[in-house]
């Protein structure tokens, strides 16, 4: 795990502003959001830091395949590997998909 890039965090700020207002008063939660919120404690609200690697806006397939690698144990038995083992395949897909739409 690496600290997120500060430059990237800064660059994503403006985009965060833009997408925020549109979702603010939706009373039917978008699919995957509550699942993805499990990531926020360590990767920032909406996956945008501060914290460990920023997740927002990565492609869904990239996030999903990284999580599957962690889950398989190929990346060792670190905290993120153990964590990934707690989710079903469908849950990993749903949260990766939601995070990929955060800009």
């Amino acid at each position: 795990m690496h600290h997120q890039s500060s430059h990237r965090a800064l660059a994503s700020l403006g985009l965060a502003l833009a997408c925020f207002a549109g979702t603010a008063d939706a009373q039917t939660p978008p699919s995957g959001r509550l699942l993805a919120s499990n990531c926020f404690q360590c990767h920032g609200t909406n996956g945008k830091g501060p914290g460990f690697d920023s997740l927002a806006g990565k492609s869904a397939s990239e996030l999903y395949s990284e999580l599957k690698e962690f889950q398989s144990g190929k990346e060792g038995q670190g905290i993120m590997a153990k964590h990934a083992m707690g989710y079903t395949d469908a849950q990993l897909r749903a949260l990766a998909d939601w995070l990929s739409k955060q800009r």
Partner: protein
Amino acid sequence: MDRRQLLLAGGVGVLAGGLSACGGGTTAEATLADGMQRALSERSSGTSTTSTVLPAATAGAGRVLVLGGGMAGTSVAKYLRLWGNLDVTLVERNSAYTSNIMSSLVLTGQRSLSSLQYKYDTLRSRYGVKTVFDEIVEIDPVGVKVRLRSGTVLSADRIVLAPGIAFDPVPGLDDPKLMPHAWQAGPQTTLLAQQLAAMPAGGVVVLTIPKTPYRCPPGPYERACLIADWLKARKPGSKLIVLDANPDIVTEVDNFSQAFYGLHANVIDYRKGVEISSVDTRTRTLFTNFGAVQGNVVNLIPPQRAGALVAAAGLANATQGRFAAVDVLSYASTIAPKVHVIGDASGTTQPKAGHIANQEAKVCADAIVRLFGGGQPDPAPVTNSACYSTITMSQASWLTAVFQYDGANRVMTPVAKSSAASVGWNKDNFEQMSTWFNALMADTFA
């Protein structure tokens, strides 16, 4: 903005020190130095995700009162506003929160208490949460009303109750300052730090661990490790007697066993199944089922129950009347459906700790948003717990678990493969502990 300022603004890794694991509810009794507040407020109100003001709730929007501004209450207030068109008011006794997480590092002088203080400015300015700083006197769980010390009565459509923990009285503990718990960060933490600093080398420290469930399962064990390491360096020849009311180490057994019986064996005297029946503060003596134990400094962590508001509202119907039973799909009380109880005050299968309290808050917020919209809570919520434990003053271990909803038994169940700890401890984990802590606090307060 140079890099250092940016890091400060984002709250990442400003302070080298890290520590303690778990977190918890509101009751911090602290008052702060102004300068520290300023530094802190700069840190917690800087950049991060959503630097815009959310639109205010529209007329007729649902109203939610959040009672208690600790890890659970602050998180739920933030996410109710972020996710819903709702009018949210947070009621809290103190104008700042002092983090329990990392607070054992104050005992070893590695962290200042003021560095652990968080204000509610960002909740107001960025998320539009209304704040009321007052003492809650009475909750009407049916009428959904709250009466405050000032005489004000607040009413809403729903209440989220997050009062954290309260301590059982200990017979003979006439002055809690003489045997501080330091388990709600604040003046008690300072007091214990002062008593440890004043102790002569070769002295005896006693730390007591209450029966489960208590706030932050690994917390007392990591504190014991940390104090032991500090005693070696600063008070040579001293001993730390750990009196555990539980039959054995309750969590992260491999790491804490290796630390207690190996690394710190020349300092720590660990005694299992020892319950405190009464104390004599004058002689600093604890009377137990295994005889009397005396120390120069006594860190007495009493048995715990939900914050007093839970019992006062008649909602303490779990764990032999100690905590609130809830439906873990929404955290609604099983007695009063319009009152939700989250964090350490609820009785669930999940640990009482700040990281998971933050996630319980999100599940609760999501459910409340759905309920106001005429829907039903998510039928398959997931929560997670993660934390780091100090094994020495510069090395840490980690512990994690993911919980899935078990519909047949209506409980959150830990996924076996995900319930794990690090194999041993190291300096990298100690550094990651700071990243984790700052991220968690930002997701809660910023």
